[in-house]
């Protein structure tokens, strides 16, 4: 038990039939922190959340809440509340009665309930919505009512299961900012589930990256982005060029047929490793002046920058620049030592980070199917 830890998961495992959903999850969640479970659909993030809420029982392992084992505690006795993916507002009750539901269960006086509901509606910017019918609210408003309903009972921990998944992009961005500020004002722990890495990076204190029922990495958003532990994390969080490389010595990595200075050390001499270079960290120089060189095979305007696919030694890199180069141009590449991140080989090596089959369309399609999960 560390200091300020509110929830601890110990050796949590879960399987459905023969499929392993969670494989030995260990995790400490600090009080008042904004923690995000991030991963693709089917990675086990929602299952973990439901085990914390008490809707699901783990096959093995313990859920510890403030030092007490709450494995056998039913959901209605846990100091934890959930915002459901589809809000789960009670359709036969109006906004007031929805928010008052948990308070009435607690046998609070109607006068105090009315005050609390008003306070909660102000918190989520829905002043005067008490009498409204649930069906007459927009998605964003329903979302706010769901948040007000959960926060009204003053939980210690709020669990949010992809709460913004059904909202459009603009509203989503606004709600991200708002959720973060609500969390700060209420001073409670948020555990947030999402498959949207942008959302995870911009809101969280701590990000837990999950895949295949295992925790891949736990860290601050900056750590996760700059120091990914393996190829899966590097690829899932932002864009990455992931190359086969060899650590010749401390601070000296060889990849793409050239030797680069880097900041990583502690590997065995000549250990083969995965090298991560973020597309925005690559400097483009005139042909012949770079450490390595390649040919631009495609170039897409993205607004803030151009996104080019560059063939270097038969490996397709993604490179982002603010200058325009036409397709077919030969260019030189320079990579600064701090732009190179070296990772140990893992089960995910060689599976990610090559843009040879890259197309915007494919990425877009996979986004859509994920949201429909």
């Amino acid at each position, binding site marked *: 038990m560390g200091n300020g830890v509110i929830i601890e998961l110990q050796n949590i495992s879960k399987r459905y039939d023969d499929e392993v959903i969670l494989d030995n999850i260990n995790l400490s969640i600090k009080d008042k922190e904004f923690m995000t479970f991030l991963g693709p659909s089917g990675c086990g993030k929602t299952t973990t959340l439901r085990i914390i*809420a008490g*809707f699901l029982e783990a096959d093995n392992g313990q859920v510890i809440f403030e030092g007490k084992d709450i494995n056998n505690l039913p*959901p*209605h006795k846990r100091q934890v509340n959930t915002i*459901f993916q*589809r809000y*789960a507002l*009670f359709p036969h009750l109006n906004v007031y009665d929805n928010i008052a*539901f948990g308070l009435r*269960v607690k046998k609070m006086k109607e006068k105090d309930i009315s005050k609390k509901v008003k306070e909660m509606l102000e918190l989520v910017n829905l002043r005067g919505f008490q009498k409204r019918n649930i069906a007459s609210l927009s998605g964003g408003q329903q979302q706010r009512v769901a948040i007000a309903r959960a926060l009204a009972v003053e939980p210690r921990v709020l669990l949010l299961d992809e709460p913004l998944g059904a909202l459009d992009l603009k509203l989503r961005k606004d709600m991200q900012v708002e959720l973060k500020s609500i969390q700060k004002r209420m001073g409670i722990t948020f555990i947030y589930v999402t498959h949207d890495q942008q959302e995870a990076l911009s809101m969280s204190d701590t990000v837990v990256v999950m895949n295949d029922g295992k925790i891949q990495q736990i860290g601050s958003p900056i750590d996760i982005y700059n120091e990914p532990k393996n190829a899966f994390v590097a690829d899932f969080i932002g864009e990455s060029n992931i190359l086969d490389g060899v650590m010749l010595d401390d601070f000296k990595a060889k990849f793409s047929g050239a030797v680069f200075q880097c900041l990583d050390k502690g590997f065995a001499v000549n250990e083969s490793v995965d090298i991560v270079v973020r597309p925005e960290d690559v400097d483009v120089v005139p042909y012949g002046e770079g450490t390595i060189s390649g040919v631009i095979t495609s170039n897409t305007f993205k607004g803030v920058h151009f996104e080019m696919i560059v063939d270097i030694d038969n490996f397709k890199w993604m490179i982002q620049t603010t200058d325009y180069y036409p397709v077919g141009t030969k260019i030189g590449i320079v990579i600064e030592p701090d732009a190179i991140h070296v990772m140990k080989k893992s089960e995910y090596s060689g599976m990610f980070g090559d843009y040879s089959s890259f197309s915007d369309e494919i990425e877009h399609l996979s986004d859509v199917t994920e949201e429909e999960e």
Partner: protein
Amino acid sequence: MKKSSLMKKLTAAPYLVWAAIFIIVPLIFVLIYSVTDADGSFTLQYISDIGKYKDVMLNSIWLGFIATVISLVIAYPLAYIMARTTANVQRTMMILVMLPMWMNLLIRTYSMMILMQDTGIINSVLTYFNLPNLHMINTQGAVVLGMVYNYIPYMILPLYSIMSKMDMNLIEAAGDLGANKIVTFKDIILPLTLPGIASGFTMVFVPSVSTFYISKKLGGNTFSLIGDVIEMQFKSANNYNLGAALSLVLMVLIIICMMVMNRFTGDDDDGGVLI
């Protein structure tokens, strides 16, 4: 736009014609017969005669009501369990519910009679084990049992239909907010399934009140229900006018019962499903 609305009218035509011939016209006949005498001249005599049948009518409504409540009590948990099991179990249970309906009502009722007779199968078994016999046939209980047995699928189906559409997250959300199972049932599940209860209630209550075959076979000659009286007027007494008057009054009484029921279950009937 115009074409499609014409199309709509044309496609609706067969149903309208059907409804007119087999629903509206017979109802008009019932109405005419009930206020005329054998010669065809206007009279309210038959309507006023109905007072004599007050007890039979009230008894019919009472037994129909009891049968409906029993059906509801049995069907509600069953439908709930059905709605929450796996798809395979749901399918199997659905077939089991529907299976008796594939057989004719007369045959089903006849077999119940054979089961419950004083020398019937149940009593034979009891005798075999030296247990005291039960007198079941020709009692009101037997009639109610017959109603429940015959009409309970019509209670299960609308309940199952509305429960399987209910968002299970709502139940989790209620628990999440601190509600125990009883509160969750009272404040969430029950109000959300009321439309299903209302349509199930209608679909069991109406045929139960007006049944004649079940009461005849399982109730014997000890008492008769309003359905039996009406049947008798048409089939043996040849008093079409009194039969029509009785039918009309029964219809009105059932409509009143349903209106009371609907008021009780609230206004919005979305999700209220027939079959």
